[in-house]
């Protein structure tokens, strides 16, 4: 009996050391649940939808997770996404070639991210408040430049769109009915992998963890705390821009509400994946499991014929359970 409790305790510490395992287990549980209960869930069509949608949001989650590890967050990513899509669409509609239009969109979204970072590091206002403000402000910019209405790209799809987020037809045609695997999945895996390496294996990554774990200690050891935060804010902006142009390359239109609520999805995915709001803890792998879990939930519930409104209630419950679970695991003693 005693050895059992010790084993359980060891297991708890082991899980606490790698919170993404909790997200993985929850994901597998949800996956198995839908495989059993929802018709058409275990099909190439449903799986490809989950991966395709999760990958776009996942690129933003990568940035959000890094920011939260650094002890900050960005609630303006959804609005930033809309701004970047409008910039991309309107510049092309004004006659610019797709590539410079894309670069302009990425530049602007990076700048919007950097503005968040500048305000936070120069004023000391918590990023929650700062980016709540810029969330509204950037949404206003999106509405203003889009004149409050849709922007649509009506020319034939340029090759750039296929590179950004084309359907992988050679794979999709193998299935009947055809699946919906898209290039965005590869871009997401590439970005998540590269940023994981940056976080775990580079000096910059070391500084990100230090800044979020104990800002004072990082400062005392000569880590350029403000610069680190600024770079992570800018990176989050850049990743939001990448997600934006990829989504636009698929849909070729953007509306003023594009991306609304995505900031919460990104924060929720990170928290479910074991990233702590207090900073200094988390992995991109865990946060990616988080977004995969949320996307699986949404698709699974749709396939079960559950009204889509229920999704938020279930997602909220999963979020709470993850936080309670991770808090329990990381508790001392």
């Amino acid at each position, binding site marked *: 009996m005693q050895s059992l409790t010790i084993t359980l305790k060891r297991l708890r510490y082991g899980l606490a050391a790698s919170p993404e395992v909790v997200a993985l287990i929850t994901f597998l549980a949800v996956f198995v649940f839908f495989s059993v209960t929802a018709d058409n869930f275990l099909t190439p069509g449903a799986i490809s939808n989950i991966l395709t949608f999760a990958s776009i949001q996942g690129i933003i989650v990568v940035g959000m997770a890094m920011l939260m590890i650094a002890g900050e967050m960005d609630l303006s990513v959804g609005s930033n996404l809309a701004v970047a899509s409008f910039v991309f669409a309107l510049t092309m509609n004004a006659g610019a070639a797709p590539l410079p239009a894309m670069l302009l969109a990425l530049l602007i979204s990076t700048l919007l991210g950097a503005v968040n970072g500048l305000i936070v590091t120069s004023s000391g206002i918590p990023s929650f408040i700062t980016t709540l403000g810029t969330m509204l402000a950037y949404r206003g910019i999106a509405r203003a430049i889009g004149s409050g209405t849709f922007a649509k790209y009506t020319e034939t799809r340029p090759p750039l769109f296929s590179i950004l987020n084309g359907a992988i037809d050679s794979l999709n045609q193998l299935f009947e009915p055809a699946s919906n695997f898209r290039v965005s999945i590869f871009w997401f895996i590439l970005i998540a992998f590269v940023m994981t390496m*940056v976080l775990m*294996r*580079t*000096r*910059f990554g*070391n*500084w990100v*963890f*230090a800044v979020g*774990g*104990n800002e*004072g*200690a*990082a*400062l*005392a*050891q*000569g*880590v*350029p705390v403000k610069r680190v935060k600024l770079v992570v804010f800018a990176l989050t902006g850049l990743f939001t821009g990448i997600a934006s142009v990829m989504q636009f390359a698929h849909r070729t239109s953007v509306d003023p509400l594009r991306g609304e609520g995505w900031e919460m999805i990104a924060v929720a995915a990170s928290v479910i994946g074991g990233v702590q709001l207090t900073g*200094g*803890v988390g992995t991109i792998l865990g946060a990616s499991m988080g977004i995969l879990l949320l996307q699986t939930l949404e698709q699974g519930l749709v396939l079960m014929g559950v009204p889509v409104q229920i999704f938020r209630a279930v997602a909220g419950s999963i979020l709470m359970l993850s936080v309670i679970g991770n808090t329990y695991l990381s508790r001392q003693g």
Partner: protein
Amino acid sequence: MSNDTNETPVVHMENIVKHFGTITALDGVDFTVEKQQVMALLGDNGAGKSTLIKILMGVHTPDRGRIYFEGQPVRINSPREARAMGIETCYQDLALVNLMSITRNFFLGRELARKIGPLHWLNMRRMNDLTRAALADVGIKIRSPSEKVGTLSGGERQSIAIGRALHFGAKLLILDEPTSALSVAETRKVLKYTLNAKERGLSVIFISHNVRHVYQVADAYTILRHGRKIGTYAKGELTEDDIADIIAGVREQ
């Protein structure tokens, strides 16, 4: 005066004034630390100890006053600059990142890395080996360099911060209330590491609000109260009780 008079002090701060809004944190304080000296900086809460130290480590800039490091007038604009000069600070809470490994803490801010493109790739194996060796060299045994600092005891954490300062060739080690949260046995260890640092040629500033924590190791005491310096006293000049009374303001010198 001791035989140190011919040598240039490691640090000499002159007439330091610092205001925060309407509050005068330091009102013309002089402060000198000789070479290979353990200087206790004593004072009650709010006496100005931490402001003085934060000026020395580049967190605050003084409104007035001059700082000399090894005889040279200096301006210390950031902790990074302070560290480049050889000033290392071990804070009670600010020394280490508890969520990170011993190695990552040991090399924080001076990681061994290979630059490829814009990124500095960490040489973890080399840093792990060096951390273990460096800590063993100053008499500190660790279980594993990849262990999280948060799992260590308070004394172990202090010892790692001190070991780090020793390894990176600090000239001046600032210990901020290093023993205030420690058990008796652990306090003794930290005091041992402090003397160890002195033997290796370092100067040490030992900050405390309680003279009993430093009486055994300090060569001299500087006492602050309400932003002013009460005085600097050599070892043996005053008893423990005298010093405690001066800190508390029960007695004027």
